């Protein structure tokens, strides 16, 4: 991905008094590292390196041989780096950068720089431009407002790059930055950043949940194996399509049980049968409609056909009960089985489904949490009332965009209008999030927009608690 913006030139702020001996510099740096290492594993590794007797003995040996403290440190640094330099492995050769960083801090402490790499403030939205950056320089940075980093020295496997990527910030190294002045417009080209990795890093950095969309058991397995926090939408249609009769209750129960077991205690958001509109079942003939997308589909169709819907609801409850017998611990913080109703427009539709559930099992609420997919303008506009009945929201942007913008998503001539970034769709998302949070229920997103890296920062800023990705290209950890 390529990002552009005004440049801000990196320089370290001076702080502290100069000291004269290695031991004093060591104490200053040790103290600073000890504090910074608490929440930073890279700096915890630096602390181990600093505490390594090999380091201090090499410096002291040089001092004993007659060198002044600064020269002794520089010589010790070169001796230690030469231990790594002989290794023909770029990952381990990059450890030489870590050694340079530690000695840079020691030198800094000795010459009055403070050695603590004082947090450096970068103006919001500016691209950080530096000749060389060390991992310790990264500790004070506010990554949430940093669009990118340009750096002359360093390799893509260095810790600075790893830290930047973990924070979702694009970084380009090996660029001659000597001619760049404060405020110049610069761009950062980082092919390693973009798409799914970018979304994953941003969502993780914001402390929100990463879920995965699934249409069958294999996709559930792959998503959980990749480290997803749960399944954001399990489309149950696959059980119903491509066959010539309705799946039996036992068949459904076995499938839902296996799906929930595959989630290992993480939430499984199971969307109830969502046919009608453009998705028809061959064995369930329905009268043709003039406007199928405005017709009998989703929960409307299910409520019209309780004979079919009850079989699915009973199978879900049975599966949740089966799994609870095996793993009661998964239910301690509420059932991991989440029932999500599609195409809800009236609060009463949620109540009707709960009535059906209660008729099957009066104790249904301990087996499933009932929430809705917010994909109609009615659900978004009346979200506050919906939130009083629903245990969670998940925004389905594909249909929400089509209905808010009154633009058929299958009509290429309307692509200009069928745009989830339209102000009205964004407002619908905001309304939904505000209502959910006011009621204290979680709100996620499972539409295509959640898988669009251009939308990630917007959605996190809007307050979405979870993004459910439509595909996994790499591990989510």
């Amino acid at each position, binding site marked *: 991905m390529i990002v552009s913006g005004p440049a801000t030139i990196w320089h370290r702020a001076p702080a502290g008094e100069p000291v004269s001996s290695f031991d004093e510099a060591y104490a200053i740096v040790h103290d600073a590292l000890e504090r910074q290492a608490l929440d930073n594993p890279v700096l915890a*590794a630096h*602390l*181990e*390196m600093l505490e*390594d007797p*090999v380091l201090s003995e090499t410096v002291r040996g040089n001092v004993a041989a007659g060198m002044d403290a600064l020269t002794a440190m520089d010589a010790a640094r070169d001796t230690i780096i030469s231990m*790594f330099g002989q290794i023909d492995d770029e*990952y381990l050769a990059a*450890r030489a950068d*870590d050694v340079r960083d530690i000695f840079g801090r020691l030198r800094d402490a000795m010459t009055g720089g403070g050695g603590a790499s004082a947090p450096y403030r970068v103006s919001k939205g500016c691209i950080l431009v530096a000749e060389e950056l060390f991992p310790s320089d990264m500790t004070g940075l506010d990554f949430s407002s940093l669009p990118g980093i340009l750096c002359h020295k360093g390799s893509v496997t260095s810790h600075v790059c790893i830290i930047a990527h973990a924070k979702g910030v694009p970084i380009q190294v090996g660029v001659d930055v000597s001619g760049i002045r404060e405020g110049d417009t610069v761009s950062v080209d980082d092919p390693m950043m973009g798409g799914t990795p970018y979304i994953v890093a941003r969502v993780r950095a914001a402390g929100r949940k990463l879920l995965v969309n699934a249409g069958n058991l294999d996709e559930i397995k792959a998503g959980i194996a990749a480290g997803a926090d749960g399944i954001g939408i399990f489309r149950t249609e696959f059980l119903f399509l491509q066959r010539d009769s309705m799946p039996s209750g036992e068949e459904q129960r076995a499938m839902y049980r296996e799906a929930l077991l595959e989630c290992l205690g993480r939430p499984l958001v199971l969307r109830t049968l969502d046919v009608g509109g453009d998705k028809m079942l061959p064995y369930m003939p329905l009268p043709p409609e003039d406007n199928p997308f405005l017709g009998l589909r989703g929960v409307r169709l299910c409520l019209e056909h309780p004979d079919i819907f009850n079989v699915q609801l009973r199978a879900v409850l049975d599966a949740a009960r089966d799994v609870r017998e095996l793993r009661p611990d998964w239910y301690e913080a509420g059932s991991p089985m989440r029932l999500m109703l599609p195409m809800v427009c009236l609060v009463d539709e949620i109540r009707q489904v709960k009535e059906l559930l209660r008729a099957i099992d009066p104790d249904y609420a301990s087996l499933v949490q009932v929430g809705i997919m917010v994909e109609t303008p009615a659900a978004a506009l009346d979200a506050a009332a919906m939130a009083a009945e629903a245990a969670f929201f998940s925004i389905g942007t594909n249909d929400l965009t089509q209905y808010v913008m009154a633009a058929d998503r299958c009509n290429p001539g309307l692509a200009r209008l069928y745009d989830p970034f339209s102000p009205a769709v964004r407002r619908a998302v905001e309304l939904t999030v505000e209502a959910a949070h006011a009621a204290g229920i979680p709100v996620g997103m499972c539409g295509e927009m959640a898988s669009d890296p251009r939308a990630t920062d917007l959605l996190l800023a809007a307050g979405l608690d979870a993004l459910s990705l439509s595909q996994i290209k790499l591990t989510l950890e």
Partner: protein
Amino acid sequence: MVCDKAILTAPTGLHARPAGELVKLVKSFTDSTVQISVSGRSVNAASMLSLLSLGMKCGTEMEISVEGGDEQAVLAAVRDFISAIKE
């Protein structure tokens, strides 16, 4: 003294972070000394810099030796830690 062999299976070699955790573990056994040797070169596993200088890659075979108190338990702990490094 007790010895055993282990193989590093972390796909990109021994990184600073897991190496730091290994050093921390070794240092917690105050009654024993742990040496790790690769291709005949032996270093003190409590020294982060020496450990990294071994340049261990995925598939590197090493010999762990422990001398001091509770040798078997320390050996098992170090061996298990190394085979569990995955990053």
